[in-house]
């Protein structure tokens, strides 16, 4: 590998960490913002809210998501009659509209379509753009509710969901998106409402130039760990990601808020050290996975070295494409700047593993932390079993009900991935969409369901996912993969909120430091590896071994 690529990979990660610590402060401010003067407009927008117990908070999240899906699906299906449709694109069929609506509301942003030939500007802006913001804000809000539950002493209030939504959207996500969007436009990301142009071509080869308000969408797509591209090929498209610098900005934007979240969680839950420990655990795992992926990609196919540039863009090169593939899968973003299907089998396998680990190596905005929290609860439980002491987490006793909820939250994505992948790999419905036979084909199917259940949304490519079977099955996986984790998390927050902190003693297992970190990594890897090792062996590993045998 080239020294330049290694230099820029390290530089981008360093800048991301630096900016994430600043963002964490901003986010803490936004989440605790309470206006001083009652009666003013600001006070009405951010102030006058009743506290909610966990049931009301959860019901609000669920109803808000459900109505969001209905409204978004309706917009997509009726776009033919709506304004801002210069290309006169017809309404989206029901199965694709439902899949896309669930996808954007659950912060997955799986795309079974290509924006440039399917969606009007109205659908992109008002439909998808809105949910890019609101789904990201929902994720962070759930994390904030959890943190409050831990900090509370025998109280019921987890905050107010509508207040959190307003604070996160107006005081944090919108201003940050404006900054990123302006930077992107300056690099050449398009932002207009024109009809597509027909270019005559320098060598007389006519080409249609797609247009649209892309920059505004792409800023929040990266910041909110959404990942849904304006164009089908996502951030590989030169209009979405035209230069080295636009690529650098987007790379940092992908990981920025996910990196800030564990720190914010630490502050809000009154356990800064625990927050920093979570950050370090996530960063170490990310660095190891990135290293492995780089080695795998640059070793490539020994008998066909040229293949390394397949599916990659020259303005990014292989190193920065691998960096992107790792952080986008680790952080539940799902955008791509190179085709994951054309990475070397093991580098593709690591992208897949990142998702299968439960989207907790930073993970999505908010969701990475509350996902990791479930693993942390399991960790203190296991540590408690080892010494025969009832486990505590930040002063709160962890009892049977808490463990049950944590196990449900951890298991739901795994069950979805394995059940649907198994069904798809033996049925005509599933296999008809696969483009490669054998091991690579299995990877395509596994990747699709992992991406959906883990709310990542990146695609392995190759798989024709716009069929009735995949649209419905993936929509179901996305929905249950999102709310099947959020529900136990908020319930857990409610249970912990009602408990009183017990003072820590010499026998208390600390949830910061090296011992806890090692055990936590162990639990994440054991759950991920034991669940998915057989499937990964038959997919990416088998393909790698067959490649070496050629």
């Amino acid at each position: 590998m080239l020294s330049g690529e290694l230099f820029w990979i390290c530089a981008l990660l360093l800048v991301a960490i630096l900016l994430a610590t600043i963002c964490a402060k901003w986010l803490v401010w936004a989440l605790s913002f309470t206006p001083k003067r009652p009666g003013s407009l600001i006070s009405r927008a951010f102030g006058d809210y009743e506290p909610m117990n966990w049931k009301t908070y959860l019901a609000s999240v669920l109803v808000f998501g459900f109505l969001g899906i209905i409204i978004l699906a309706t917009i997509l299906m009726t776009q033919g009659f709506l304004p801002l449709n210069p290309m006169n694109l017809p309404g989206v069929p029901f199965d694709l509209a439902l899949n896309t609506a669930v996808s954007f509301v659950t912060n997955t942003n799986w795309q079974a379509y290509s924006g440039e030939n399917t969606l009007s500007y109205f659908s992109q802006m008002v439909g998808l753009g809105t949910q890019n913001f609101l789904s990201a804000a929902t994720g962070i809000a759930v994390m904030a509710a959890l943190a409050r539950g831990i900090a509370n002493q025998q109280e019921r209030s987890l905050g107010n969901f509508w207040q959190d939504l307003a604070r996160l959207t107006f005081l944090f996500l919108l201003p940050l998106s404006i900054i990123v969007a302006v930077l992107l436009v300056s690099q050449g990301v398009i932002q207009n409402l024109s009809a597509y142009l027909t270019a005559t071509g320098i060598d007389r080869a006519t080409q249609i130039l797609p247009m649209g308000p892309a920059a505004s969408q792409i800023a929040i797509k990266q910041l909110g760990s959404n990942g849904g591209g304006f164009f089908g090929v996502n951030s590989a498209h030169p209009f979405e990601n035209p230069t080295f610098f636009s690529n650098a900005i987007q790379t940092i934007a992908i990981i920025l808020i996910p990196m800030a979240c564990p720190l914010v969680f630490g502050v809000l839950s009154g356990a800064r050290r625990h927050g920093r420990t979570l950050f370090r655990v996530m960063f170490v795992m990310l660095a190891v996975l990135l290293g492995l992926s780089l080695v795998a990609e640059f070793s490539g196919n020994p008998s066909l070295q040229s293949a390394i540039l397949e599916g990659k863009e020259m303005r990014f090169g292989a190193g920065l494409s691998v960096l992107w593939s790792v952080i986008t899968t680790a952080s539940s973003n799902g955008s791509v700047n190179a085709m994951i299907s054309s990475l070397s089998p093991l580098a593709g396998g690591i992208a897949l593993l990142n998702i299968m680990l439960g989207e907790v190596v930073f993970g999505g905005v908010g969701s990475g932390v509350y996902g990791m929290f479930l693993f942390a609860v399991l960790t203190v439980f296991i540590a408690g079993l080892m010494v025969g002491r009832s486990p505590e987490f930040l002063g709160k006793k962890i009892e049977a009900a808490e463990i049950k909820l944590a196990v449900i939250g951890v298991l739901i994505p795994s069950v979805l991935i394995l059940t649907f992948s198994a069904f798809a790999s033996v049925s005509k419905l599933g296999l008809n969409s696969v483009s490669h036979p054998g091991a690579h084909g299995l990877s395509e199917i596994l990747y699709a369901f992992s991406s959906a259940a883990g709310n990542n949304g990146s695609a392995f490519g190759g798989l024709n996912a716009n069929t009735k079977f995949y649209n419905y099955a993936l929509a179901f996986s996305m929905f249950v993969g999102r709310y099947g984790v959020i529900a136990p998390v908020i319930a857990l927050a409610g249970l912990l909120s009602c408990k009183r902190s017990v003072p820590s003693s010499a026998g208390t297992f600390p949830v910061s430091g090296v011992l806890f970190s090692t055990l936590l990594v162990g639990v994440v890897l054991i759950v991920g590896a034991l669940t998915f090792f057989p499937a990964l062996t038959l997919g990416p590993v088998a393909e790698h071994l067959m490649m070496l045998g050629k």
Partner: protein
Amino acid sequence: MIKIISKSLIALLWGSLACGVIYPLMLTVFSQTFFRTQANGSLVIDAQRNVLGSFLLGQKFTSDRFFSGRPSASDYETLPSGASNLSQASTALREKINERAKQYRLAVSGTPADLLTASGSGLDPDISYESAILQIPRIASARKVPQERIAGIVRNLSRPQLPLFSKPRIVNVVMLNQAIEGDSSR
């Protein structure tokens, strides 16, 4: 319950207005004022005000008078564009790579990899400096101009792939072809 539903609808309404209407429209107005060229697709426009393409999007060059870009799985179509998604280990990719090397009458190992592989977007406007150098003799003879002249243009337009590192270098094929066309017609 009814309270939650009405609160949800209100939140969706202000969310759509702020994030879905005001934010993108304000950004469009801002971009059209301060970054007009970039916001409209960095277009290539000739003296007669015809749109020839975009400097950012690769386009199809078939004539010997122009540098070829990278292979495109979607043949530089834009609605939609796309990649091959072929596995690096697949026979299909191996065959494609061998076939492309034959076009340049070179061994696979001796041809720059970017000319043998399809890009991720299907619209990659750039090729490596080596790939441009390789094509100079063909273009010089088709245009009946000295190779040195074309090589000079390639050198001028080439740029480092990564800032701060002088190598490897890449060059934008659309800019390059526009430049040699302009140079020849002078």
